[in-house]
């Protein structure tokens, strides 16, 4: 099979090479043999209604790829033939179409258009559409909303901005992978190592493996590191998220969880411009828990002893008898109360002429942490985009190279994370350091504890490098028929080195611990080739767009993990040559091949009725040979009813109205590779081989059927726009461990079960131009989503590992809880209901279901522009329930600190340390008592900017300039008493950051 494949690769390469050769030949040859009419140079100037030139207007010869952009003086020049139609478009202005006669000078005056958003091109992946004409559900965010945010990960910038897109930033340390769910959780497999809920990420046409890079560092091991960190925020032009069947079915078996399209910035055909930007600022943990001070803590502890009638002795009350009863430390301040400094610098150069344009953008970002010690995150990104069009406009080449490298220094605390230690430690615990600055072991030892900062000397450094290369080649074979090749290559490497010197341990234990290191190297490479044919034809009122193409893709993912033990010198930790013992924990390379044929037919009648058919036939190496291929497809349609006379005549306030809907099938192939293979694996110990699972050669894709209906309306000349969508996604054929009796050798076998997960929901989006005058503009956009998630069916769930995780008829993100009865008046302790009266408490008694998912969520964005000033406020809001912070520390009366209010609350059991109290606490902490409102409203982004007046910028030789201030997470309103309501638990809250900066363009 190896041979077959290599032959195939050569065939593919030869074909591609052939295409290129053919194209370049044709491109050069064509001008001498004009096929149609004589081309001539058409030029002119584009102005607004006030006569001011508009730079950056795009001018396209209709139905070709030929296009230019006006320069800063509004001037343009483009080759075109008489009879061609020039289309002038610019965001915020009504497009102008001019059919060329013989004239060579075309000056155009463009009218501002409040509804012009409709003409903005939207990237739908293999094709482009517009806001007005799209049949699918596509949300979009552009560079203005992304680039100034002082964050590391581009996905974070989308929080609160898109309906139906749920993003949770899981902790405030830089680089942690956020969680993203597009229209809910579709797959039952939702663990970090086996997650069937990740969307498909495509950067400039190249799909990338976005699964978080696992980390050994305690404080981020629950999320991993996001490979998207290495994308430069300032190089992103737009991010589109495809949500429904119409938009995602063309991605077939990879579209089930939605598709995230990231497009990088291009150069423009205008005079060379250099843009520089610098900002800096600082961040702090956005929230802290309000905990007891020493006096309050000690009083509760003493009360516990009194209640229990127990005499405090050293072994059970070292905090009262050994530790200093007057000492007070705010551990939250010490452990995560630091200030993270942020610095960011960007430089970009762009320019071009009518044939070629390019952009080079580079950036540097540095961010400290709020943890103690000298830790930071640094990244450098560079991207280069080149676009070239041949003189005759028939050949176009679009190259993009994105390179990013980052270094992430983390703390590796020895046991639990520093944040959970900080909220649990008694406030009178001894000092972390001795007077000489070394770690204090003795005082902690006296209390039978380990110094919580023991991990301070451990270091974890993760270095990543990422190269994304893409080439898009177009050739216009004849009018309306284009050939395209999309070629891509990605190479991602990450290298984590964790060093644990003996110094991190109590010197008393040095005899039995070993200085050690863990080294984890991850490599991900892929190539992609997608030849495509694009056909466009207008006949009468009808317009037809046809696309057919094929995908060849190969990914190769490797991971090596090695541990070194017994280093004698601290300086050498990490160099495996000097380790006494080296153990290779993991060494594997996984190949994945993917092959597809896809097609799209877009049809419209009078730009009023739209029909969009997409289909894909997919083959993937992840499946056994019996199930390699599957077909996916969708139908989408839209009707712009406001174009109908009976509407436009009668409902004059209605400036736009569209009904659209879609249904179709997508799949989910995120199921791990080689699952079908009947194979042995190497044992941990050297030289052994062992089968580790039963194999099922028939396992296959999870299938996701999506249906959507939506209405878009524009009122009062589109001053107010709204879209309401309803969707229902059903994900079936769930790939889960099917239970087997152990007499088969194993307990489960991976198989597709007829279990079905349903996500339904309503999404509302409003945008309005409240005030729009020459000097003052006020825009508001608002989105809100009401998602509902439900496990529809799961045969024999009782026998699976999911029996106590999911309940049929309930959402997936739930807790199964005991029913809380109240405080037992006799004992003063919690009591929960023994539902089946069998005297014991187990899952059969856990009848209360708490939905931890969001009831609704969304964002409100207000932008004000007054002359040269602008201000933007983005509020994010989430309505949800969660686990009360009162149950995140521990039983009241134990040696753990508590939330303020614990002494006055009537809902909490009396301070006590008896076994019974502990047992009742444990039961109650898994009961309905813990449910609390964890909703929040957060000022996610606040920014103000001042654009320098021209008189000033001209003096310094600049064309444009501004200063700005940006704040993230400045305010949070929530009834939740714990750390960050966004991600409930004792994790580092997101940072509250303020940055200021300056930007100049020359």
């Amino acid at each position: 099979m190896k041979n077959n494949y290599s032959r195939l690769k050569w065939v593919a390469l030869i074909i591609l090479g052939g295409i290129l050769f053919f194209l370049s030949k044709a491109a050069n040859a064509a001008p001498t043999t004009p096929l149609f009419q004589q081309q001539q140079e058409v030029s002119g100037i584009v102005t607004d209604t006030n006569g001011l030139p508009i730079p950056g207007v795009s001018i396209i010869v209709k139905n070709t790829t030929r296009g230019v952009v006006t320069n800063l003086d509004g001037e343009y020049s483009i080759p075109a033939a008489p009879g061609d139609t020039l289309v002038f478009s610019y965001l915020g202005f009504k497009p102008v179409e001019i059919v060329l006669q013989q004239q060579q000078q075309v000056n155009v005056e463009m009218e501002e258009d409040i509804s012009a958003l409709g003409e903005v091109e939207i990237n739908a992946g293999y094709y482009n559409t517009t806001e007005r004409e799209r049949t699918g559900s596509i949300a979009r965010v552009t560079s203005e909303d992304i680039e100034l945010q002082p964050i590391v990960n581009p996905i974070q910038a989308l929080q609160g901005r898109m309906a139906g897109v749920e993003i949770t930033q899981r902790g405030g340390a830089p680089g942690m992978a956020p969680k993203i769910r597009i229209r809910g959780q579709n797959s039952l497999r939702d663990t970090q190592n086996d997650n069937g809920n990740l969307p498909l990420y495509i950067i400039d046409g190249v799909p990338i493996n976005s699964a978080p890079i696992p980390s050994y560092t305690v404080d981020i091991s629950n999320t991993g590191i996001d490979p998207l960190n290495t994308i430069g925020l300032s190089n992103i032009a737009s991010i589109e998220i495809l949500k429904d069947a119409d938009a995602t079915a063309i991605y077939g078996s990879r579209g089930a969880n939605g598709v995230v399209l990231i497009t990088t910035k291009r150069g423009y055909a205008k005079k060379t411009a250099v843009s520089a930007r610098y900002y800096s600022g600082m961040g702090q943990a956005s929230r802290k828990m309000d905990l007891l001070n020493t006096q309050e803590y000690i009083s509760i502890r003493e009360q516990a002893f009194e209640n229990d009638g127990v005499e405090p002795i050293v072994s059970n009350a070292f905090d009262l008898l050994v530790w200093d009863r007057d000492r007070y430390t705010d551990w939250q301040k010490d452990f995560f109360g630091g200030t993270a400094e942020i610095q960011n610098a960007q430089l970009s150069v762009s320019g071009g002429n009518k044939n070629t344009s390019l952009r080079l953008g580079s950036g540097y970002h540095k961010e400290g942490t709020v943890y103690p010690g000298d830790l930071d995150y640094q990244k450098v990104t560079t991207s280069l985009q080149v676009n070239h069009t041949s003189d005759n406009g028939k050949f176009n080449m679009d190259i993009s190279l994105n390179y990013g490298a980052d270094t992430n220094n983390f703390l590796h605390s020895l046991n639990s994370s520093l944040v959970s230690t900080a909220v649990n430690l008694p406030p009178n615990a001894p000092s972390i350091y001795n007077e000489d600055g070394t770690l204090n072991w003795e005082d902690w030892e006296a209390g039978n504890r380990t110094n919580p900062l023991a991990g301070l000397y451990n270091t974890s450094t993760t270095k990543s490098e990422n190269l994304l290369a893409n080439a898009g080649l177009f050739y216009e074979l004849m009018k309306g028929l284009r050939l395209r090749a999309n070629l891509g290559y990605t190479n991602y490497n990450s290298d984590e080195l964790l060093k644990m010197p003996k110094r991190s341990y109590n010197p008393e234990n040095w005899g039995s611990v070993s200085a050690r290191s863990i080294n984890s190297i991850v490599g991900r490479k892929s190539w992609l080739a997608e030849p495509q044919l694009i056909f466009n034809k207008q006949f009468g009122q009808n317009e037809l767009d046809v696309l057919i193409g094929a995908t060849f893709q190969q990914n190769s993912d490797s991971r090596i993990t090695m541990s070194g033990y017994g280093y004698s010198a601290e300086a050498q930790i990490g160099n495996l040559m000097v380790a006494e013992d080296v153990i290779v924990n993991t060494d594997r390379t996984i190949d994945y091949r993917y092959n597809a044929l896809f097609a799209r037919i877009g049809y419209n009648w009078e730009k009023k009725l739209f029909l969009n058919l997409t289909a894909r036939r997919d083959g993937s190496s992840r499946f056994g040979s019996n199930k390699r291929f599957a077909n996916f497809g969708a139908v989408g349609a839209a009707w712009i009813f406001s174009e109908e006379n009976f509407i436009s005549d009668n409902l004059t306030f209605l400036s736009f109205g569209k009904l659209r809907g879609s249904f179709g099938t997508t799949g989910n192939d995120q199921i791990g590779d080689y699952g079908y293979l009947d194979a042995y694996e190497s044992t941990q110990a050297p030289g052994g081989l062992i089968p580790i699972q039963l194999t099922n050669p028939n396992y296959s894709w999870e299938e996701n059927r999506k249906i959507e209906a939506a209405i878009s309306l524009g009122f009062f000349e589109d001053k107010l726009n709204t879209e309401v969508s309803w969707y229902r996604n059903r994900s079936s054929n769930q790939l889960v461990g099917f239970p087997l009796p152990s007499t088969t050798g194993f307990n489960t076998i991976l198989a597709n079960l007829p279990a079905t997960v349903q996500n339904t929901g309503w999404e509302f989006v409003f945008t309005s131009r409240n005030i729009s005058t020459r000097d003052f503009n006020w825009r508001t956009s608002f989105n809100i989503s009401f998602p509902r998630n439900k496990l529809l069916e799961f045969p024999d769930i009782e026998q699976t590992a999911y029996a106590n995780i999911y309940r049929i008829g309930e959402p997936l993100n739930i807790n199964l809880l005991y029913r809380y009865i109240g405080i037992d008046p006799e004992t003063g302790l919690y009591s929960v209901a023994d539902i089946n009266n069998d005297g014991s408490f187990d899952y059969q008694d856990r009848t209360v279901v708490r939905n931890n998912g969001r009831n609704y969520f969304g964002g409100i964005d207000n932008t004000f522009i007054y002359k040269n000033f602008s201000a933007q406020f983005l509020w994010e809001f989430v309505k949800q329930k969660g686990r009360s912070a009162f149950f995140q520390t521990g039983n009241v009366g134990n040696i753990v600190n508590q939330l303020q209010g614990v002494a006055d609350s009537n809902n909490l059991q009396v301070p006590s340390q008896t076994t019974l109290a502990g047992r009742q606490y444990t039961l109650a902490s898994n009961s309905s008592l813990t449910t609390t409102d964890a909703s929040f409203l957060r000022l996610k982004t606040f920014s103000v900017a001042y654009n320098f007046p021209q008189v000033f910028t001209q003096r310094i030789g600049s064309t444009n300039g501004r200063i700005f201030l940006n704040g993230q997470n400045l305010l949070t309103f929530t009834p939740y008493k714990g750390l960050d309501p966004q991600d409930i638990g004792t994790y580092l809250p997101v940072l509250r950051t303020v940055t200021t900066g300056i930007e100049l363009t020359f």
Partner: protein
Amino acid sequence: MKISINIKRLLFLMGTCLLASCESFLEVDVPDDKMVTETVFASDETAESAMQGIYYQLFNATFSGGTTSSISVLGGLSADLLQPVTSNNAFLVEFSENEIFTENTGVLAIWRSTYNIVYLANNLLEGIENSTGISEPVRDRLEGEALFIRAFCHFYLVNLYGDVPLVLSTDYDKNSLIPRTETSQVYEQIILDLERAREVLDEDYINNERYYVNRYAATALLARVNLYQENWNQAEELSSEVIDASSLYSLPSLNEVFLANSSEAIWQISPAGRGNILTSTNEGYTFIGSSSTSIKLNPEFVSTLDSSDLRSTSWIGHFSNENYEYDFVHKYKDRSSINNITEYATVLRLGEQYLIRAEARANLGNISGAIDDISKIRERAGIDSTSDIDPNLNLSEIMDLVMKERAKELFAEWGHRWLDLKRLENATEVLGETPTWQETDVLYPIPAEERSKNPNLGQNPGY
């Protein structure tokens, strides 16, 4: 037009290439950390690695690994030898009170892990049977080793659970609905497997490592099987065969019995199977007293050992802290270490063979021979037994002596005491004082989860 012809040609090429090649494009090489079963059994080296994997897995398997859910611990709790240190751990308490619920995790863990090893053995047997690339001597040896492992697993299953599914293939369709097989039939298969193993295995250990199975391991286990089946002649004959192999086996001093490749060991399990830098046995970690230890020795049992009995000092340790004070099993000395492997978990050893022969001889009427064998064991423990034992004991008296000696010698090893009480029907007599004792408790329950997955599995009486 010329161009359009080119396009057509190109499209045609593209199309045919795509349609014809999809299938082969999707073939990926097997990743380098996996090996297709067929390839594993294509050569001697890789087939041997598969057997090595089973030896390693025995260390990691719950029933054989020496952790708190292993047969050594749970069997000792069920009998009168071991006790949980605290009453917090419900699943241990259920064993020590002989009041096991069908949902008990220990019962399930033993069942599961044993059948997993049975699967591995069957998979290897099927692999070598279908292979043509393995040399004859290696095939024979692997067959013997795998058959021994399969017999060993079935032996414990049938003794702990009574009638059990006899699994002889890897077909999961069949094995998921397999019913229980009568005890006598399970024993027939165990004997068949062990006899075949004796035929094909060599006397020597590979690389002198006693974690490999050799012919004597099969002989020693077969001797035990025959003892349990009361085939006294065969039991005596087979145990003698092992005892007579004096160039391989002898009785070293008490502190050397559980060392790696000790001269007493017939078959051991190496901690190398753990695959990390920890080099100690789990038995050491489970038993040796510390603030986190959950298993202790029953003080009543400890009191049966005279202070002159060296085993009371060499094999028993004492632990105390502010909360607890107890005696613990100290056969393994290494609780946790990362240096060199000093101890292997010992499964079959010469001491047991002497006691098997003593019991067989007693039942065959050879009282003096039985006393000689018991004396061998007692002498090593520093007890001068020639003057101690009356040579005119009757059968029940000598059996009583053998049983006491078995408890003192084999305590906390592989559930010997529990299986002895059961096979000699002494359990009610010895454990009857436990308030929750019932005669049916001699068999563990079939795990509830297994029964819910396989409707053909019945339950033992009393559960």
